[in-house]
């Protein structure tokens, strides 16, 4: 009984301390929001690559349909970043966040193919049957660090 009440008190104390540490109100400017996001240990981005949205973190290995105009070892800069967030804060762009505020790079690690699939086609009562072997082509990208820039850094880089 005594153990239960002390753990309950500890739980309440943890919740209060977490609430006191984090800013509950919305930040006044984009720069302040980015500072809040950068202050936390881990960030994620939601970005579009080749028309599809992915939730990405640094060091992730992303598999997309084969990108034909890119070579292994090339570094791509993600241009369509819709959202950046951390544990307690999220910044959503409309529709994108400018690259001056957020920059994420992805390195092309390899061009591969998937496992062999055998596509079976048949039209019944017509004597038509085909088996088509097929390997889907993919490109694998390694996501680099997420660079969250404040307004001063953005203005310095633009000037």
């Amino acid at each position: 009984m005594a153990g239960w009440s002390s753990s309950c008190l500890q739980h309440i104390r943890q919740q209060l301390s977490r609430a006191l540490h984090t800013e509950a109100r919305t930040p006044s400017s984009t720069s302040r929001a980015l500072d809040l996001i950068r202050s936390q240990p881990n960030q994620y981005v939601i970005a579009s690559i080749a028309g599809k949205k992915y939730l990405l973190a640094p060091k992730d290995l992303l598999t997309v349909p084969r990108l034909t105009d890119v070579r292994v070892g090339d570094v791509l800069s993600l241009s369509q970043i819709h959202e950046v967030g951390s544990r307690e804060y999220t910044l959503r762009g409309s529709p994108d966040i400018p690259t001056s505020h957020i920059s994420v790079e992805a390195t092309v690690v390899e061009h591969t193919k998937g496992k062999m699939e055998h596509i079976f086609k048949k039209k019944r009562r017509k004597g038509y049957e085909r088996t088509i072997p097929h390997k889907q082509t993919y490109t694998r990208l390694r996501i680099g660090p997420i660079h969250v820039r404040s307004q001063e850094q953005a203005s310095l880089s633009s000037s």
Partner: protein
Amino acid sequence: MSSSSRLIAPLTKPVFRAQLCSKQANGHIAFVPQVRKLVFEYSQNWSSSTNTRTYLKNNLQNLARANPHVEIVVRQRANRQPIVRGLYLNDKEKVIPLNGFEVTGIENKVQLLLDSSGTKIKSLKRRTVESTTQSARGIWSGLHDTPFQI
């Protein structure tokens, strides 16, 4: 009396040695190309190696210049079909026979070896994002007091 007050098990969280190893992230900061060596084996006598010999005479030097990280070896192997072997940093090998291909076909197969990482071919349909980092927002759990860590 003294034995009852002594602790039986340590109160520290167990540390499993797998979590102490660093996770590989090739390309995160620096990219290391995974292909290290290409070995071309051809026959001087057989006609199935004709296109391979043409490729080796005309295209190989440009290939070597364009890919300085790859060691390229050319070997004669009499009375056999022509092959190209790709050797990778994970000690895996990919062997592709070159009989029946024109010179452009041989170029495509060599490019396939250069683009690959040597890992086993798996189905990539459902493996979109492979992540080794903890999620930034954490995983909600109604059964845990503190946030659930993998």
